[in-house]
């Protein structure tokens, strides 16, 4: 809806909003559909037939994006986001913000952008990964990466505000995400093997969306097991079950 308003160059007081459909999160991330709204400009001079339909993103922070979706659906979602901004502009703005924040914090570190490569980098979801390297940066990672997750979240909000789009960047500190991805992939492999041997399902510890996504993708081609996310919010976790 925000996008519709921006396209029309109006604010909420100048339009009438009609909800066409509420949108669904879909089951396990499949078959979800965005909410549709129709935005009618009201009484701001002559504007014949200026009515558009805008899909509203069902989930701004991508919480439910952890399930790998069929390519077709993913493409549609991508297209709905509208023109992608120049990724160089996104990267430059992100590096500026990160450097400013580190500067204020009096943290001495190298900040380098690179293209995302692996699922853990958010390949296909982010336009760049900003690597922060330096001594004693554990502070920026926090317990189980919680501080790093907050850092990345806030930087992306600031970027969205600055560039008026939903382009995302990943932030990594001292290769933490790389190492975490590696250990998650190993864990996925070991647990899938256990499921195959025993025929019993295994449920992993609760994980954030990006980590669940790494597990789903790691096992997506396995002939022996399937993965689903179960539970809500912070308790959401991946279950690995035998493929039947």
């Amino acid at each position, binding site marked *: 809806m925000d996008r519709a308003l921006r396209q029309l160059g109006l604010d909420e007081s100048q339009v009438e909003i009609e909800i066409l459909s509420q949108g669904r999160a879909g089951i396990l991330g499949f078959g979800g559909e965005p909410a549709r709204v129709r935005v009618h400009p009201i009484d701001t001079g002559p504007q014949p037939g200026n009515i558009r339909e805008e899909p509203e993103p069902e989930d701004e*922070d991508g919480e439910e994006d952890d399930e790998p979706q069929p390519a077709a659906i993913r493409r549609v979602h991508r297209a709905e986001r509208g023109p992608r901004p120049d990724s160089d502009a996104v990267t430059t703005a992100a590096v500026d*913000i990160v450097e*400013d*924040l580190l500067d*204020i*914090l*009096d*943290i001495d570190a190298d900040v380098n952008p690179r293209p995302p490569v692996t699922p853990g980098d958010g390949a296909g979801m982010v336009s760049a990964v900003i690597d922060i390297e330096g001594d004693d940066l554990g*502070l*920026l990672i*926090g317990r189980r990466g*919680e*501080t790093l997750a*907050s*850092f990345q*979240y*806030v930087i992306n*909000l*600031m970027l969205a*505000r*600055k560039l008026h789009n939903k382009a995302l960047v990943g932030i990594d500190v001292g290769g933490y995400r790389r190492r975490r991805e590696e250990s998650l992939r190993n864990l996925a492999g070991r647990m899938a093997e256990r499921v195959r041997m025993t025929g019993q399902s295994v449920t992993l510890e609760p994980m954030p969306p990006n980590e669940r996504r790494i597990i789903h993708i790691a096992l997506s081609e396995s002939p022996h097991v399937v993965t689903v996310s179960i539970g809500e919010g912070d308790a959401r976790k991946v279950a690995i079950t035998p493929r039947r």
Partner: protein
Amino acid sequence: MLKDFVEYIAKGLVDEPEQVQVTEQRHGERVNLHLQVASGDMGKVIGKNGRIAHALRNLIKVAAMQEGVRVNLEIG
């Protein structure tokens, strides 16, 4: 540093950055920060279910640790 940190982030989140105000009160090792923004911008610093406020508090802890103080952030 604490104040600058909160101010920088808040200004980057809101529609009316000139309305962002951060006041800082120090009592020895304890620092109370009070962040105020335009009323229309409250959601931009709090977020759905307080998610943005939670992230801000997580980040401010980093700044507090750098300074060796304990910090409390009040919003609104």
